[in-house]
């Protein structure tokens, strides 16, 4: 029973990932970043992209580290002998 549920979850995830739109946008986001740079009021364009427009990306990175730390703690941490 557990295996069937696992296979169903994996298959549905695969379906969702296959249906996403990976086609290239004409022109890209490059021009938008250059034109709207003044709105963020930050001289460092890399940091403006990372911490303002793509803050979701950075928070995902922080979540990944948090998951790694909690996984390590659950597996290897525990009570000290």
């Amino acid at each position, binding site marked *: 029973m557990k295996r069937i549920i696992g296979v169903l979850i994996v298959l549905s995830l695969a379906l969702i990932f296959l249906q996403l739109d990976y086609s290239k946008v004409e022109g890209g986001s490059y021009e938008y970043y250059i034109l709207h740079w003044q709105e963020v009021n930050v001289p460092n364009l890399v940091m403006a992209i990372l*911490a303002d427009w793509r803050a*979701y990306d950075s928070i995902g990175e922080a979540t990944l580290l948090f998951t790694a*730390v909690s996984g390590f703690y659950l597996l290897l941490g525990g009570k000290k002998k």
Partner: protein
Amino acid sequence: MKMSTVVRTTTKLVSPFLVTYAAYLMVYGHLSPGGGFQAGVILAVSVILLITSHGYKKVRKRFKFKEVGIIESSSAVSLVCIGLVGVLFGGFFYNFLNGGKFGSLLSGGIVPLFNIAVGLKVGAAFTFLFYILLRWVESD
């Protein structure tokens, strides 16, 4: 495990400068090259350098296991809170603190706060991982 006197003296001399450099990268991340993640890695290296030269048992007394965990989780919570306060003003991670001249330290709104939170989080997380691995190795 202890290394020789030369190594111990040098690492003691170098690691405060590494902490200073990490703080500079965090606070000035929106003006100069650098940013939160790099600052956090350097912050973790300053502790890991002390662990390799002085041994885990001695470093653990100064940088306590629980405190590192508390720093890690509280900076994660503050990171989400910065995003959630923006919801009141218009959207998740909306830049609500607009002020300061272009190019000054106080410009950029939430970007410096975000950098500081990410830096503390990454530094504490890497130190925590090292602590857990060392504790596991030494318990055998």
